[in-house]
Structures are given as structure tokens and as C-alpha cells.
């Protein structure tokens, strides 16, 4: 009996104790051990941490598979799901995290080793350690780092411990910097230490302050603070007081998973020093605060640490080390779920205590019906105007959010419904729940039917326009029309200065959606609208005014005419992103539909370092008659540029489906390897994208002189051209500049600043004159402000020591004309670089003369003919008008022999009725004219007929010339093509802000107000590829382009050669 009782008690004890699964760390051996998910980058050989609650992957050494430079980063992290494994894709997970790595201001770790430090078998935390020396992941900062001694002269090493406790829903990350030298490591300034996080699209960033979800524009406001703080507190921005968001944590909202980054207070000393306390305290700084000075695209900087203070100087003494720590938490999809994890963190070693919090819970229902509403976003705001949390309603309309004690009101946000805001605040105390219900107005329903002239369903885009009330000339719509901070979506506007008496200056788009196969229904906010139907540049534009009322369905029917037929020509877009790019959340279905509804014939997938295939999606949506696809890749380097290759093979097995490593490899080799990926290397097209983008532009990075087409000497803040440690030529050395590619993306998206070289606008520019440059006088044409209409120029030093003038803000069009004049037969293309619906598909597009397969169903489109047309230059680039041209009967891309130089240029310009054409320019370039000569400007009378101009002109031209036609329109293309209204926060802007007094030495900043406008409306522009003219026949020798098979022999240039014995020593064997 006694024994029975003992056994019974023992059994009871066992059943009452829930055992926490252990944490484990190991090197990944099979794909089933990976995390899985849309953004998952892990592969065999990487290192994994798991505890049954969350799991994470740290990449092994090598080149980053994310957007960074080096391996050794945290690349995947997710909740542990149900363990399903897809036979072809691996584990079915939901990782939506791109990459995270420690940063010491703008230096990172270049790992030489990743290892399991503790595998968790002892029941304690599992730990993976990454170690190595420092590395510049953005080399243009190198000169800043060196000149300011931001990287100490002493030898310091770094290691990062990724620590996962059993049962924890967060990863603790401890970063240590050790001075292994005999001299002190002195820093020239107090620089922030922290992390760079690349979230990727699909994770909506939320900051628990006045920003909420509106981080992009709130950061603009924050960067204006230095002027205010300087006036108020006498403080100046500097490296020791960087402008930025001051927050308790950074959190995200996503589909099924969310993330948060928080700081450990111990050693978190960047903010709060006597020098900068007054700068940050007014914004709620605490010992746990994080500073976010940079939030650009997917690139987020979170900082809180700093070099230790030694007698007033930032210094790590010889032999000493410094550490800081942070936490990366994982939630179930909304901000509230991951905030709760952060609130619960207790870490005595690092001074982190749980945060007292209460909850706000309630239901969201529909007014009138009382129906509970699911998937509504509820955002809580405190009495001081700070957005504290966000949660999504469940199936029964309920939500719960967790906030510090205080008073809160709620905003309920749902597409197609007006935002509801509670009028009163509820009080929340620690540990308690306050109730707050919200009611949303019901939506209206709009159904649209679109047919062509023959009554057939037509894939079309539906744009719903509304007019906002005049709110003042200095008010932007996003300041009063909608609230980005609570998560409302951005509304495109016409970008015309508002006038009280003119509604046509106050237009915006409430919604844009697609009638995939001619029919669509969509809930909408009640209101008065003008509904437009369109199908790109060849079709008409139809509209109808409607009044949408709640709970009512309004039907609209349209007929669109194919106004501009282009027999024998197919339109294509060769720079396209989808959800397979880390900076795009465009699902494949919507992605391909966006092309069908814009009337583009050929779409080429070019995701960042990932090979996608759109055709299965096109087929599944039954769009094969309307749209054809090709497979490509955008090889995305960090600083050298972006390069597309198509058509290429897709390899389903590897993580990136066939992309390859690019880091520290010269451009010529990258071009050759892109060809090596092609289905037929002889037919491959390698295209250089946005060559004049700042950090991402190939010509900008290599300092290519517009009129020489060769690199000139780099100035400050240029790409790192130093030799490699083993003495080899670095990949960014000017000698590595290569023009061994087929196509140049001259017209990228709707960014005028990349297309046209900057000229001082007619009518001048408001604002003070720059101090660095005066007006051009006495024949001076560079390093001074020229007359209106003239190009700004700078003087640069050539590699041979000579000097020359070059555009201060060059555009790709001028580069291309010069390249043609130097004899480089590069085909110009125009592509959308579309990542989202705001960047309309096929804006601009590339028309290719392909022959009969372009007519009729796109199933029959010959991809080979398209590629041949591009290689041969039978191409017209346009965002609207269509140009046909010939010289002495010879067509675009071909060469004509005119023995006496006498030529007849025939030009025919067509456009759909809604596309404006105002002028046509016939130009001649050549070896004697790197800046093309205008042969004639032809004014085109206003009109809406299809053929706007059909004329033949006679000219005499020198030998070895080329003829190009440009077409322009004055009226913008609203609403089919919306303005370029949201420009990315440029890294150069952050550097300028950081450089402070050094900004005057940073090229673009010296020009003050005389620089390209970052935003612009879209006006019609088109141009042809050249027709070559020579006096005598000549067949140019065509050297075969270099092709390198992937995986072939390559020069081995490691950052640091390691002793074999050391490598052997690092190998972890079983204990003896």
C-alpha cells in the first residue's frame, strides 16, 4: 500500500510538471532542419538555434545571402510551426525576416568563423558564436571612418553570441569588442554601436511614438529637429548626437509573424551622455531607449551602445573588452503580440526588468448590422499623441493590445471603410484590462465591367479618383487627408500645387485595383468618385462619375478601344520585382496581373539575387493570351550597381534558385557569369540598371565621365578602390570598369533625375544661394551656377592627372549618347523597376520589333525574336508615345550607307488620345558629337488624333553618325501614371546629416538648392535607339562576349589568409 502511494505521488508529480523543451544549437545538415518561409535564406551548413518556441538560422561565413556584404548574420527567425515539410521547398515556415548584424556605426564584422559555443544539451541556453575582425560593408564610408578615426588603429576583434534560452520567445544577442592589441583603441568620436536590420517588405515597421506606422515621413521631420534643437538648446548635430527616432523598441506587423528589437540597459550609453542628453531627453529617452537614425527601404539602423568612456575619451584599453546586448522577439503577426514578449523580458545580467503593462481589449463591429469584423487593425494612441500599440481583430471581431499604464483611445483601420476613432480615452493600469469597443461604418460596393470594342472581356486597371478639400497651400494631403501613422495607405496625388478654386489641382486616388479578366467588384469607402478604366498606353482611357453609398452596389461598365496598334512590335519590361525580392511584397498573382492590365506583352522576372518564374502564375490566372514572360535576375551588389541577366535558367534547388555570389568580384566577371546562367549564353542580354543612381548606380560608383565614358579619379566618399590584402587589384579599381554588356537601362521608372542631366530650371529655384558655388562668370562653365536652362558641371581629375568638366548630376540619357558616339553599340531600354502598385507596370516600357509573333495572342510571342531585337537595337523606349523612324528607308537599330552624307529621316509619332505630344526632336550624334547635335525641333500641334506627326526631313550629316528621335509631351499622364511622389530616404542623405560640418565636402550637398528634384510628375517621353549612318559600308568586328560558367575557376582572394593549423584548431571534434 505504501509503495502504491509512493508511486501514485510520483506519477502525480510527473503529470503536474510541464517540462520545457531544451534549447539546441547545431549546424544544419538537411533542409528539413531549416526554418522556411517567404524570406528564408538558410541553407545546409548554416547554424541553427531552436527551443520549440522559436527557431533561427545564422549564416555561415561567406557572402551574405541577404542584402548585406558578409555572412555570419542572423538570416531567418520564426515561431516554430507545425513541422510540415514540403517535398520541393523544404520546411513550411513563415520566416519574414531578411537579415540582422551588429554595426559599429557603419562598420560591421567580417566573420571568419561561426561555431556552436553551447549546444544546449546541459539544459541551459544554446549559443552560436560569430567572430571576426571589422569590415566596411559600405565602402563609401571608409574615408569618413578613416578621416575621423571612427575605426581605431588598434587591432580589435569582435564576436556575437546568439543566445536562446529554453522556453524563450526571443533571441538574446550579445556583442563584444575586444582590443587584442598592446595599445589602446582610441575612437575619434563617440559613435553608436547597435545593429543593422534588414526587414524586407511584408513587415510593416511600427515605432511606439508619434511615428506609429509612418516612419518614412516622421523621420523627415526628425531630421529637421537639429535646427530646432540648435536654436533651443544650442546643440548641434554631430556623430555624438545623431538625429533619429528615440523609442523603447522597434516592432513590426506582418502576416502571421512579427518582430521587435529591444535594448539591454547595461552598457547602453550612446544616448544620455552629458553631451547629448539634452538632445534626446525631450523625446522620452530612457536607459532602454533605441536610436533609429536611418530607416531606408528595408535598411534600418538601431543603436544604443558606444565605446566605453575612459577619462572623457571613447576608448577600449589594451587587452580590455566592451559588450552590449539586445533582444529580438518574435510575435504572431501584430505589434501587440510581440510587444508582450518584450515586456516580459527579465535579464538580471544585463539590467533588463519586465515592463509593467496593462491591456486594452474589445470588439470591432459594423455599424448598423453589429456584425463582428475580422482582420481590422486597431491602433492605440495615448493622450500625448504617441501611438503605443497595434493589434488585429480575430474572427469574432475581438482584439487585445498591451500598453504601459496610461490613457488611450483607439483607431480602427480597415480597407474600404472610413477610419473610426473613439472619442474618449480609457484608463489602463498595470495588470488590468480596459475595454474599448469600436464601430466601423459599412462600405459601399463598386463593380466594374470592362470590354473591348468587340465585347470581349479586357484585363484593365481601375483607378478611383476623388477630390480633397482645399486645406492650405502649405499642407500636404498626407497631413490631413489620411493618417499614415495608424496604418492607412498612401494616396497618390496629382502633385500639382493646390488652388482653392480649382478642383483639378486637388485630385487623389482613393484606390487602384485590377479587373484581371474584365470584371471586378470591390468594397469602397462611400463618397463621390470618378472611376477610370485603362489598359496602358495603347488603349483609350474611359471614366464615369459615381456616388458610392454604404451598403449599396454601384455598377459601372466601360468599353476600351485599342487606339494605338503597333503591328510587329511587342512591348516589354525588363526590370520587374515580385514578392521574391526582399524589398517587394507584390504577390505573384497581383504582380503578373499588373502587367496584363497595363497592356505589356512581355514581363521579365528580375528579383534581387533570386531567379523567379512568372509563367506558371500567368497560366493559372488564364492570362496567357495577354501576357508572356521571360526569366531573369537582378544581380544586386551593395555598392557596385545592379545588373540584370535574361533569359536565364532557374534552378529550383538552391536557396536563391540560381543566383550567385557577387561580393568583391569585378563587374566584367559578374557580366560573364550572368551570361553563364543564360539558357543560351550567345543569346543572353546583360543589362546595367539605373546607372546614375547614387550608391546603386554602376556609372556613379565608378565615376564614369559622361563625355569620356571612362572613370575619373574618385573624390571623397567614393567606393573603396584600394588593393586587396594579398596585393591583387580590388574589384572597384578603375581598371575593372567594364562595358561588356548588351543593354543599358537609360529610362528607369518615373525618375526624371536619373534620366536627364540636371539643368537649372527656367524660372529659377526658390531659396538661398549655395555658399560653395557662385554664379558662372567670365567664361567659367564648371564649379559655378550657370544660367537658367544650362547644365551644372564640375571639374574632375582624370586618371592621367588631367582635368575635365563633367555634369554635376549626370543623367543616363547623356551617358548613353556619349557611349554611342564613342562607338559602343549598347541598346537603350526603359523599364519600370516596379516593386509595388505605386510603380506602375510598364512605366516606361521597351518596344521591340519582333515581327508577326507580336500580333494576336501572346502565347505565340517569340522570346527569341524579342532578345534578337534587343541585341540588334530594334527598340523604342517610351512611357506613352510610339515612334517609328527610318533613315533612307533603313529602320531603327540598323546601319545605312549614305555615300554623300545626304539622308532622309522619316518620323511617324502615334499616341493614344489621352497621351499628350508636344514636340519631336531629331538629333545626330557621333565621334564628333558626344553631345548630340539637334538637327531639328518640331512643334507638334495639340490634338488627340492617333498619328500626331508623320513627316520626312532631309539633312546632311558627317560620316559615322547616328540618328535618334526624341518625343516629348507637356501634359502629365494622370491618373494612369501617377507622379513619383515618395522618394527613398537616401543613404547619402543620412551621410550628409551625419557628416555635419563635413557636408560641405560632400559633392551633392555643395550645390544647395541646385540639385535634381526628388519628386516629379510623369510626362510623356519617348526615344528611339540609333540608326547608324556611314559613308562607306563596314562590318564592325563582333567579338564574342565573355561567358563564365557558374562554379568555374576563380581567383581566390580571401580577406585574410588563415594558417592551416588554426583552421584545424577551429574544427570542433568530440572530446577525447
Amino acid at each position, binding site marked *: 500500500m505504501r509503495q502504491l502511494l509512493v508511486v501514485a505521488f510520483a506519477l502525480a508529480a510527473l503529470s503536474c510538471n510541464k517540462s520545457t523543451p531544451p534549447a539546441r544549437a547545431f549546424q544544419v*545538415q*538537411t533542409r528539413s532542419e531549416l526554418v522556411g518561409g517567404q524570406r528564408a535564406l538558410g541553407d545546409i551548413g548554416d547554424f541553427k538555434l531552436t527551443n520549440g518556441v522559436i527557431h533561427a538560422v545564422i549564416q555561415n561565413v561567406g557572402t551574405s545571402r541577404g542584402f548585406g556584404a558578409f555572412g555570419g548574420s542572423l538570416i531567418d527567425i520564426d515561431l516554430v510551426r507545425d513541422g510540415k515539410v514540403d517535398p520541393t521547398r523544404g520546411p513550411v515556415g513563415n520566416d519574414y525576416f531578411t537579415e540582422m548584424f551588429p554595426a559599429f556605426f557603419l562598420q560591421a564584422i567580417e566573420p571568419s568563423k561561426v561555431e556552436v559555443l553551447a549546444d544546449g544539451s546541459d539544459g541551459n541556453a544554446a549559443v552560436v558564436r560569430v567572430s571576426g575582425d571589422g569590415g566596411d560593408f559600405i565602402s563609401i564610408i571608409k574615408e569618413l571612418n578613416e578621416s575621423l578615426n571612427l575605426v581605431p588603429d588598434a587591432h580589435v576583434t569582435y564576436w556575437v553570441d546568439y543566445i536562446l534560452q529554453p522556453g524563450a520567445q526571443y533571441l538574446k544577442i550579445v556583442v563584444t569588442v575586444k582590443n587584442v592589441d598592446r595599445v589602446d583603441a582610441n575612437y575619434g568620436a563617440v559613435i553608436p554601436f547597435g545593429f543593422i536590420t534588414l526587414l524586407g517588405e511584408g513587415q510593416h515597421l511600427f515605432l511606439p511614438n508619434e511615428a506609429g506606422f509612418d516612419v518614412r515621413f516622421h523621420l523627415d521631420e526628425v531630421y529637421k529637429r537639429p535646427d530646432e534643437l540648435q536654436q533651443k538648446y544650442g546643440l548641434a548635430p554631430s556623430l555624438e548626437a545623431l538625429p533619429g527616432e528615440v523609442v523603447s523598441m522597434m516592432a513590426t506587423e506582418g502576416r502571421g509573424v512579427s518582430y521587435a528589437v529591444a535594448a539591454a540597459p547595461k552598457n547602453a550609453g550612446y544616448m544620455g551622455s552629458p553631451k547629448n542628453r539634452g538632445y534626446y531627453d525631450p523625446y522620452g529617452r530612457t536607459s532602454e531607449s533605441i536610436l533609429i537614425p536611418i530607416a531606408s527601404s528595408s535598411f534600418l539602423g538601431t543603436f544604443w551602445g558606444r565605446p566605453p568612456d575612459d577619462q572623457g575619451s571613447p576608448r577600449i584599453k589594451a587587452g580590455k573588452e566592451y559588450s552590449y546586448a539586445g533582444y529580438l522577439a518574435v510575435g504572431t503577426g501584430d505589434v501587440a503580440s510581440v510587444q508582450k514578449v518584450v515586456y516580459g523580458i527579465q535579464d538580471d545580467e544585463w539590467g533588463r526588468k519586465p515592463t509593467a503593462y496593462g491591456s486594452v481589449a474589445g470588439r470591432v463591429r459594423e455599424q448598423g448590422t453589429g456584425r463582428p469584423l475580422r482582420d481590422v487593425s486597431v491602433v492605440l494612441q495615448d493622450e500625448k499623441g504617441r501611438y503605443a500599440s497595434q493589434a488585429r481583430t480575430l474572427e469574432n471581431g475581438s482584439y487585445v493590445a498591451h500598453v504601459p499604464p496610461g490613457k488611450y483611445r483607439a483607431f480602427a483601420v480597415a480597407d474600404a471603410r472610413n477610419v473610426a476613432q473613439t472619442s474618449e480615452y480609457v484608463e489602463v493600469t498595470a495588470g488590468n484590462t480596459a475595454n474599448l469597443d469600436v464601430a466601423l461604418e459599412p462600405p459601399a460596393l463598386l463593380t466594374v465591367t470592362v470590354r473591348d470594342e468587340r465585347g470581349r472581356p479586357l484585363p484593365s486597371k481601375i483607378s478611383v479618383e476623388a477630390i480633397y478639400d482645399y486645406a492650405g497651400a502649405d499642407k500636404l494631403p498626407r497631413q490631413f487627408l489620411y493618417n499614415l501613422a495608424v496604418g492607412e495607405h498612401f494616396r497618390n496625388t496629382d502633385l500639382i500645387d493646390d488652388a482653392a478654386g480649382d478642383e483639378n489641382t486637388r485630385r487623389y486616388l482613393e484606390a487602384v485595383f485590377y479587373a484581371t479578366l474584365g470584371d471586378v467588384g470591390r468594397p469602397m469607402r462611400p463618397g463621390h468618385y470618378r472611376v477610370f478604366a485603362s489598359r496602358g498606353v495603347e488603349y483609350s482611357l474611359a471614366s464615369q462619375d459615381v456616388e458610392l453609398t454604404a451598403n449599396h452596389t454601384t455598377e459601372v461598365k466601360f468599353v476600351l478601344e485599342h487606339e494605338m496598334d503597333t503591328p510587329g512590335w511587342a512591348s516589354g519590361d525588363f526590370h520587374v520585382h515580385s514578392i521574391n525580392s526582399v524589398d517587394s511584397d507584390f504577390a505573384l498573382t497581383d504582380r503578373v496581373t499588373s502587367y496584363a492590365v497595363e497592356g505589356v506583352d512581355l514581363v521579365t522576372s528580375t528579383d534581387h539575387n533570386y531567379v523567379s518564374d512568372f509563367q506558371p502564375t500567368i497560366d493559372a490566372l488564364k492570362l496567357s493570351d495577354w501576357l508572356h514572360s521571360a526569366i531573369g535576375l537582378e544581380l544586386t551588389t551593395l555598392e557596385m550597381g545592379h545588373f540584370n541577366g535574361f533569359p536565364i535558367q532557374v534552378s529550383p534547388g538552391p536557396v536563391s534558385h540560381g543566383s550567385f555570389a557577387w561580393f568583391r568580384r569585378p563587374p566584367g566577371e559578374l557580366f560573364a557569369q550572368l551570361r553563364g546562367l543564360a539558357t543560351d549564353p550567345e543569346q543572353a542580354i546583360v543589362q546595367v540598371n539605373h546607372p546614375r543612381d547614387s550608391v546603386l548606380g554602376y556609372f556613379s560608383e565608378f565615376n564614369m565621365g559622361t563625355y569620356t565614358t571612362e572613370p575619373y579619379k574618385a573624390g571623397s566618399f567614393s567606393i573603396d578602390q584600394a588593393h586587396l590584402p594579398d596585393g591583387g587589384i580590388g574589384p572597384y579599381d578603375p581598371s575593372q570598369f567594364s562595358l561588356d554588356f548588351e543593354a543599358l537601362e537609360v529610362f528607369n521608372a518615373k525618375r526624371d533625375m536619373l534620366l536627364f542631366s540636371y539643368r537649372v530650371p527656367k524660372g529659377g529655384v526658390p531659396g538661398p544661394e549655395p555658399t560653395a558655388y557662385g554664379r558662372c562668370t567670365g567664361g567659367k562653365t564648371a564649379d559655378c551656377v550657370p544660367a537658367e536652362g544650362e547644365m551644372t558641371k564640375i571639374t574632375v581629375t582624370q586618371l592621367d592627372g588631367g582635368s575635365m568638366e563633367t555634369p554635376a548630376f549626370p543623367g543616363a540619357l547623356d551617358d548613353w549618347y556619349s557611349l554611342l558616339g564613342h562607338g559602343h553599340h549598347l541598346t537603350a531600354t526603359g523599364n519600370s523597376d516596379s516593386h509595388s502598385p505605386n510603380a506602375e507596370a510598364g512605366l516606361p516600357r521597351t518596344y521591340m520589333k519582333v515581327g508577326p509573333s507580336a500580333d494576336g495572342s501572346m502565347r505565340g510571342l517569340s522570346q527569341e525574336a524579342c532578345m534578337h531585337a534587343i541585341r540588334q537595337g530594334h527598340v523604342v523606349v517610351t512611357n506613352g508615345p510610339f515612334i517609328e523612324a527610318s533613315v533612307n528607308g533603313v529602320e531603327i537599330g540598323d546601319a545605312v550607307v549614305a555615300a554623300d552624307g545626304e539622308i532622309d529621316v522619316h518620323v511617324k509619332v502615334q499616341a493614344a488620345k489621352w497621351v499628350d505630344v508636344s514636340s519631336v526632336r531629331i538629333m545626330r550624334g557621333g565621334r564628333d558629337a558626344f553631345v548630340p547635335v539637334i538637327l531639328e525641333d518640331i512643334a507638334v500641334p495639340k490634338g488627340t488624333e492617333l498619328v500626331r506627326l508623320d513627316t520626312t526631313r532631309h539633312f546632311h550629316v558627317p560620316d559615322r553618325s547616328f540618328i535618334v528621335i526624341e518625343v516629348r509631351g507637356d501634359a502629365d499622364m494622370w491618373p494612369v501614371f501617377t507622379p513619383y511622389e515618395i522618394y527613398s530616404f537616401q543613404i547619402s542623405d543620412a551621410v550628409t546629416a551625419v557628416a555635419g560640418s563635413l557636408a560641405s565636402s560632400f559633392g551633392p550637398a555643395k550645390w544647395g538648392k541646385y540639385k535634381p528634384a526628388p519628386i516629379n510628375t510623369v510626362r510623356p517621353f519617348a526615344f528611339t535607339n540609333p540608326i547608324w549612318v556611314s559613308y562607306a559600308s563596314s562590318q564592325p568586328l563582333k567579338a564574342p562576349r565573355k561567358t563564365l560558367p557558374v*562554379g568555374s575557376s*576563380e581567383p581566390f582572394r580571401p580577406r585574410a589568409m588563415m594558417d592551416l*593549423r588554426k583552421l584545424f584548431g577551429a574544427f570542433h571534434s568530440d572530446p577525447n
Partner: protein
Amino acid sequence: MVLAAGAALGHPQGFHERVSLAVSLKNVDGLVVVDVDGGERAKLIRAGADLNHDGLISGEERPLLQKKLLQLALQGLKVRVSGYPLVLSATDVKLSTRDDHTVSETGLSLAVLVAASVPSPISDGMKLEVEAVSADRSHVLVEVSATSAADGSVVALERHEVQPDEKWAVALRGLGAREPRIGASAPADGGRRSR
């Protein structure tokens, strides 16, 4: 066809072999690392060392496992200097059973230091020829570096995925002053491979 597909997908379940060769005036040192993916292959290798068939790899049986892996690691590796065959001897070995001492499908790893000496000095212009076949006939990643006699600095030469039946040749440079050559082969220009 199957092997090619396997190679294209990175042969996720098989042998992964990496060889680093450091050439100096009188020696060729190397580090050979073999990883065996978890699966049937690893289980078979483990079972081969389980002499008493108790399902465990005991302390006495471990050397057998190590010996087997060592044999698999080195059997396909042939190195010549301008035609002169080198005899690579293992000088140190480390084995990892991934903390699993049973006859299971858990993967295995081995690292071995090898060394070979030459009768006459190796000089710039000579060729290092490598043949490497891993146990499952997948490619072997080979890296070659040269150590200068003058200052001990290390020059990285080439890295290549050596395929089965391929003879990969690397032109040696960075070793220091030219010395009388060994072997009968004439020096060739660098990096040319032959099948």
C-alpha cells in the same frame, strides 16, 4: 544525369570534401575536411565500426570509425608538383560524431592535416596538379596558396571545384627566388585544367 542533377542541387545528402593546400619551398601542407550528411550513408559508416554490433560506437571502436573516414577522405586525393607525385601523410586527425555515439543516421565530420615533403625546392613557374574524387564522386573544393620563402607571406592562388576524372593544374607563384626544378614537365601558364 542523376549525379549532374545532384551536383546542381549541391548534393544535399552525400560527401562534402574541402581541401586546402599550402605550398612552400620544400613542403606541401594540407587540410582536408570531410562532412558526411546525415542519412543512410552515415549510418553505414558507423555500422562498419560497430564491431560488437551493440548499436554503440565505443571508445575502442572510435579509432576504426576515424580510420574509415580518413581512408574515404584521402583515397581520391592525388597531388603532383610538375609531375612528381607527392606522398601525403596524415599528421593530425579530428573526428566529430556530432555528439552521437550510436549507429544512427547522424552525420559525421573529419578534419585531417596532411603533409608531404619534396626532395628539391619547389619554385615559381612549376605546376601543382590535383586530382580529387570524393567518396560519392561529387566535386571536391580545392584551394591552393603559396608561402613565400622570403618573408613568409601567403599568396592565395586559386580555388576550384575539381570534378571526378579532372586533373586540375595551378601555376605556382609567390614562393620566392627561382630554384632548380624537379620533375621533367615544363612549366605552363596558370590555371589550365585538363580532363
